[in-house]
């Protein structure tokens, strides 16, 4: 372990937070959709991948990265709206497993359509020029783009918090997550709320995919692996809890990057070990309410 200094650990810790930021965004979307619609979205990874590919397409057709940051969530969120309206809505009230199975099938279709359109091979995704290079963060030089990922995630989270806590629509969402029946009795069109929440969740997933694209490149299978990891984050944080998703996402990111420093071959297994541990000690996760799913 020569050359292992405190600075290196500090840097790796920061890299973990940047990685965790992507997990946080994915888990927030999953949690939001589950908390409202009680739908486990198995197509969430596919929407994440779609975000990266839509960004790729926009860049190839004269768009720049900043435009992508706005357009990609809008485009994929729009697809999400259509999916909820046409495919998922007929399944409400038919048992909790059916929407899950449907989104699983949907993820196959999205991935295969992307393969048909863009080919099976992956693409590199250029980091925007302004964000290339590294900055000194006290413990050493850290890639600027990763700092940007952390900042962008923070902005999204803050915006989401404002939306949920400070707007009347956010109030309806929070009430609907607690008791959709009463909200409906009060005269709120709950199906419209569900539609928008699903669209928002997919838009955030697409945003995460776009952010992750310069870090790891773009391939059709990129959504599949990260989906399992996003599930771990939601289970650890507590399903339906946004604060839990944030803390667990960062924790999982740090655990991955720390194990890849000390025992690289165990990095993939470590997060599942973490989940097993949480399940043993606190099955409902950090912030999940016990009996939420009963």
């Amino acid at each position, binding site marked *: 372990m020569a050359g292992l200094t405190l600075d290196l650990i500090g840097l790796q810790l920061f890299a973990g937070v940047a990685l965790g930021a992507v997990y946080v965004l994915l888990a927030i979307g999953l949690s939001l959709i589950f908390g409202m619609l009680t739908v486990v979205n198995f197509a969430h990874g596919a929407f994440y991948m779609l975000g990266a590919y839509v960004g790729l397409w926009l860049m190839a057709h004269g768009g720049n990265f900043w435009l992508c940051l706005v357009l990609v969530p809008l485009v994929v969120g729009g697809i999400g709206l259509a999916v909820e309206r046409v495919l998922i809505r007929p399944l409400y009230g038919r*048992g909790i497993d059916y929407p899950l199975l449907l989104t699983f*099938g949907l993820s196959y279709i999205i991935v295969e359509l992307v393969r048909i359109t863009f080919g099976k091979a992956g693409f590199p995704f250029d980091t925007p020029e302004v964000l290339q290079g590294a900055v000194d963060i006290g413990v050493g030089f850290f890639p600027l783009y990763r700092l940007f990922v952390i900042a962008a995630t923070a902005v999204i989270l803050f915006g989401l918090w404002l939306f949920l806590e400070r707007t009347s629509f956010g109030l309806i969402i929070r009430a609907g997550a607690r008791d959709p029946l009463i909200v409906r009795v009060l005269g709120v069109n709950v199906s419209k709320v569900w539609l928008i929440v699903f669209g928002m969740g997919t838009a955030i997933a697409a945003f995460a995919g776009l952010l992750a694209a310069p870090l790891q490149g773009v391939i059709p299978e990129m959504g599949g692996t990260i989906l399992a990891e996003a599930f771990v984050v939601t289970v650890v944080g507590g399903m339906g809890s946004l604060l839990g998703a944030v803390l667990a996402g960062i924790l999982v990111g740090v655990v991955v990057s720390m194990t890849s420093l000390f025992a690289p071959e165990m990095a*993939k297994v470590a997060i*599942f070990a973490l989940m*097993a541990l949480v399940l*043993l000690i606190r099955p409902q996760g950090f912030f999940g309410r016990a009996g939420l799913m009963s």
Partner: protein
Amino acid sequence: MATDLAFEATRQPSPLLLWATRHRVALASLFLLLFPLVMPFKALAVMILIYGLYALGFNLLFGYLGLLSFGHSALFGAGAYLCGIAIVHFGWPWYLAIGLGLLAGMVVALVIGALAIRTRGIYFAMVTMALSQCVYYLFYQAVDLTGGENGLRGVNLKTVNLFGFDVDFLNPLSRYYIICGFVIAALWVLSRILASPFGAVIEAVRENEARARASGYDVMLVRLLTFVLSGAFCGLAGALLALHLSTVPIETMHYETSGLAVMMCLLGGMGTFFGPFIGAAIFLLLENLVSVWTSHWQLFVGLAFMVCVLFFPRGIWGTLMERMKA
């Protein structure tokens, strides 16, 4: 997965259906024994047997107990790998290797199940999927034993010694009937489980968990036991797959293989005795047909999945049974 059992109890099923239900193992066995005579591709027929058995094990959990697992690839894969490893690295005889594969499926099921049943309902699918990915990475990393990315190669079995006779395992037809023997035994065991008091408890937990608990049954234990039994069937199927392919691809462990079991079960009809085999047969036949003219088979898998969920939730065999009862 609530079915209207209360209604079914008041309806009088036809005597033919009652007779068929009573002799379901014999009828299913007869079908499987005659199947290769109408099926021109023997290797495909063997795959249908193996994947049918895999879907059967999955169906015990999903169809009868009502728990949706997305981690069955780990049970299937563990059976395949352990059977293969026993033959390749330790030179075990084939019957012991199959036994080890079956046991491996049960052990992995015990570990995954013990963790996953601590969560409820919808968590179950996520936790089982995540844990199966964990098992995937463990086998992926153990390159010395499993061959890592390239898969385990050289699970060669030329002859099988059955009651003093050497049977040529390379002959497709004799291979089919050897594997068929295991599948029929599994069908019989499953039928006995379902007909036993324990089988009734399994369905009781699916229909009304609170009432089953109030009746004094340990719901957690029932779930864990059913998961482990399901692991035995899937482990056996995996072991047979290793012998049939003479290699174990790493994709066997991937969670898409779990999706395969869900698909076959859904297609055939979950919670039906013979549905998984019908589902496996239709799925694999379609895969072979469609792959001839397009390489985008996955697109059709996804479409079939969605059509089944939206319009055909009882599956083909399930719908057929429904018609016969009416």
